[in-house]
């Protein structure tokens, strides 16, 4: 199907315009692209779930009201499902999860569904599944990852019901908008496996919006039968506007092969910058840092100059909270760490962090660039306050040099005096990262540094991290396990797990 999509605000300000958006029917279409570029918005518009009163929308030169009344929209809405990235858009806080799983057409009985649901929560006890299905999205608040699996399971149920009724056609469109954004590798794999199984049985049309390039590697290594039925697309923003191009999956695989395991840690020294002792308690939750998850082998997490350490954990375990606790941004119940030879614990006063550490010894790049950056700043203003004792020209020069690390000459000139809120998601994330590296701090914590980036930006960021490691130590938190596990090397990977033993 080809679509000409044009979305404007009510004040006639263009938001998204693309003339050649398409996906292939009966195929599993992977849609990559920077965050904020319009992947979700275009998909929602095509699926017919945007409010025509909020925006001026035209699809294939029809007004949105006309488009919503076409047979195509009513068919795809009846025979498909849209899995929202932001689960609270769909999940009703006044319904129990079990009731939610039976909304509308989903109320029909499916003998297979319970097994599918349990599969998505593999490794969890029966009691937990029962508790979860009887709880409400709020106030119990299942974790972000649990909610994603619950919402995705609704789409899985719809697929299963169609399979059981043998009722599928080209109009069975299932859109999964970042369905694994909050999942660790284990649950992402389980979800993906289930989607593929249903897809292969039902020959549905799937639009899978994601930033997770490691799915490519997974398909090539584990789902070869899917290769002829998978389509990799990338939405790109160019000066001429948005365009959809075929993504060459081989580029990603070749790039991944191009560096050896532990590539980022080749210049590791013996100079210790940070040590975190393994027993922690944050927000009442007992946690441990372990080297081997299965053996529960506790170990100090040490970062030396030139070293990058990768901290993995299930979604919602508290990786970001631990990072904030180390930085003194939240008060943990129990922590012990050594930063530049000085021991800190839960009783360390914030004045110590403020006067001795922040921006001097330790800095952090936050996951959500939209929250971390001042969106009303012009790009250069994001850096300016952190450059001291320089003239305006020296500052400008330094900022430009910094931007050149991530952007080409032309782009740097264009974005230098552009408001940050008008940049793409990937550009914002790179600025967020560059700003952290502008700090003289030798310990940098990177929380999801490549989230929301397209492949070209991922490669650039990878080079920046490699370059910055010459003088620093980095603690990394990321869901992009395939890339970083290889680049960091297994000896530099630690796990944050729940401590149920002490």
């Amino acid at each position: 199907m080809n679509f000409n999509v044009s979305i404007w605000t009510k004040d006639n300000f263009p938001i998204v315009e693309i003339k050649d958006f398409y996906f292939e029917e009966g195929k599993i279409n992977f849609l990559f692209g920077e965050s904020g570029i319009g992947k979700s918005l275009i998909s929602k518009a095509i699926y017919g779930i945007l409010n025509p009163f909020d925006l001026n929308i035209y699809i294939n030169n029809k007004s949105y009201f006309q488009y919503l009344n076409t047979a195509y929209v009513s068919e795809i809405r009846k025979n498909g499902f849209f899995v929202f990235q932001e689960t609270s858009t769909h999940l009703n806080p006044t319904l129990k999860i079990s009731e939610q799983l039976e909304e509308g057409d989903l109320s029909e009985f499916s003998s297979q569904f319970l097994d599918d649901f349990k599969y998505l929560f593999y490794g969890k006890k029966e009691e937990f599944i029962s508790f979860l299905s009887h709880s409400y999205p709020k106030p119990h608040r299942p974790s972000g990852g649990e909610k994603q699996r619950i919402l995705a399971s609704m789409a899985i149920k719809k697929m299963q019901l169609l399979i059981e009724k043998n009722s599928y056609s080209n109009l069975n469109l299932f859109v999964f908008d970042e369905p694994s954004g909050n999942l660790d590798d284990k649950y992402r794999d389980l979800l993906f496996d289930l989607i593929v199984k249903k897809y292969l049985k039902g020959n549905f049309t799937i639009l899978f919006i994601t930033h997770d390039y490691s799915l490519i590697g997974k398909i090539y290594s584990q789902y070869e039968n899917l290769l002829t039925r998978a389509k990799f697309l990338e939405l790109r923003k160019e000066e001429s506007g948005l365009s959809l191009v075929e993504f060459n999956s081989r580029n990603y695989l070749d790039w991944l092969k191009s560096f050896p395991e532990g590539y980022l840690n080749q210049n590791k020294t013996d100079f210790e910058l940070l040590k975190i002792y393994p027993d922690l308690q944050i927000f009442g939750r007992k946690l441990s840092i372990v080297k081997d998850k299965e053996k529960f082998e506790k170990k100090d997490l040490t970062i030396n100059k030139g070293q990058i350490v990768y901290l993995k954990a299930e979604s919602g375990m508290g990786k970001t909270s631990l990072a904030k606790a180390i930085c003194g941004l939240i008060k943990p119940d129990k922590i012990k760490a050594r930063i530049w030879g000085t021991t800190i614990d839960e009783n360390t006063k914030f004045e110590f962090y403020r006067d001795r550490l922040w921006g001097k010894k330790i800095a952090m790049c936050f996951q959500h660039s939209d929250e971390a950056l001042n969106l009303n700043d012009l790009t250069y203003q994001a850096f300016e306050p952190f450059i001291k004792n320089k003239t305006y020209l020296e500052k400008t020069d330094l900022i430009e040099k910094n931007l050149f690390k991530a952007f080409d000459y032309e782009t740097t000139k264009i974005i230098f005096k552009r408001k940050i809120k008008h940049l793409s998601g990937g550009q914002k994330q790179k600025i967020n990262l560059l700003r952290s590296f502008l700090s003289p701090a030798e310990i940098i914590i990177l929380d999801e540094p490549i989230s929301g980036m397209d492949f070209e930006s991922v490669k650039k960021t990878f080079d920046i991290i490699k370059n910055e490691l010459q003088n620093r130590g980095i603690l990394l938190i990321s869901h992009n396990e395939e890339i970083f596990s290889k680049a960091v090397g297994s000896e530099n990977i630690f796990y944050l797990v729940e401590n149920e033993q002490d």
Partner: protein
Amino acid sequence: MRVKRIFFSKSDPAKFWFRIMIVGLLLIYLWNAAFLYESGFKRWQAALFNSIFVSFVASLLSIFLGWFFSYYKYINEYLDKVVVSKTIIFFIDAIKSIPQVIGALTGYAILTNLTARDYNLSSFVLLILLSFILGLFLFVEAYDMFNERIAYYKDKDFISALRVLGMKESSIINKEIFYKNSRPYVIQKFASIFGEVFFLQASVDYIISVGLTLKTNLVSLPPTLGNLLARIDSKQDIFAIGMIFSNLSYIFELPFKHLQGLSAALTLVFVLICVYKIANALTEKLENK
């Protein structure tokens, strides 16, 4: 057509209503210049200027006090100075608990007392004092707005991200949040406080006009639209509107014979409508931003 395009283009409703206000006031001015007797015309001009001046200064003061107390409370909470921050909260809550009209009336009572004691305060000083009294009871709205702005950014990683990069707390709050990210909110709040002061001042001026001491009379206080309305000749002008119920043709004589009271009332209502529209348009613009 060009004039229509420049002055009455509706693409920005806030600017549109601001222009309407200016053009409307200009028309009232010209009408009064043509038909109102000279001393009445001078009184109306002074009243309009004083009312706008007081509203402007009081709104400015409210924004300043709101900014100051919000920041001062936050920084004391941040530095764990519980006594200071609780004292600020108590002080603000105490002001909030006093109805604005009561607060303003009490302030006016003090002002009237000062005037009655022959301190020879100039009109300018009296207007500034009026502005302070009104600003003191309205700044809590600006204070709440600034607190909401901090709370909004506290919920996100914004403050933490800047803090851990070594930015000072005062720069984060004052420069990054208040100055760079709250200007539209400040403008909107300024416009709405301006309207409130304008109305409150007129109401209080009118109310006290029946209760001044023997030593103080309306002449002792600078003219404002409120006390212009309270003058006996203005009251007669307003009452004259009732004449049209018995004699409809009298409606044509109102804008010529009873201009002082009518133009004071019209100016009040007209400015309030325009300010209300401007504040609404700014809010809408902000929400769609």
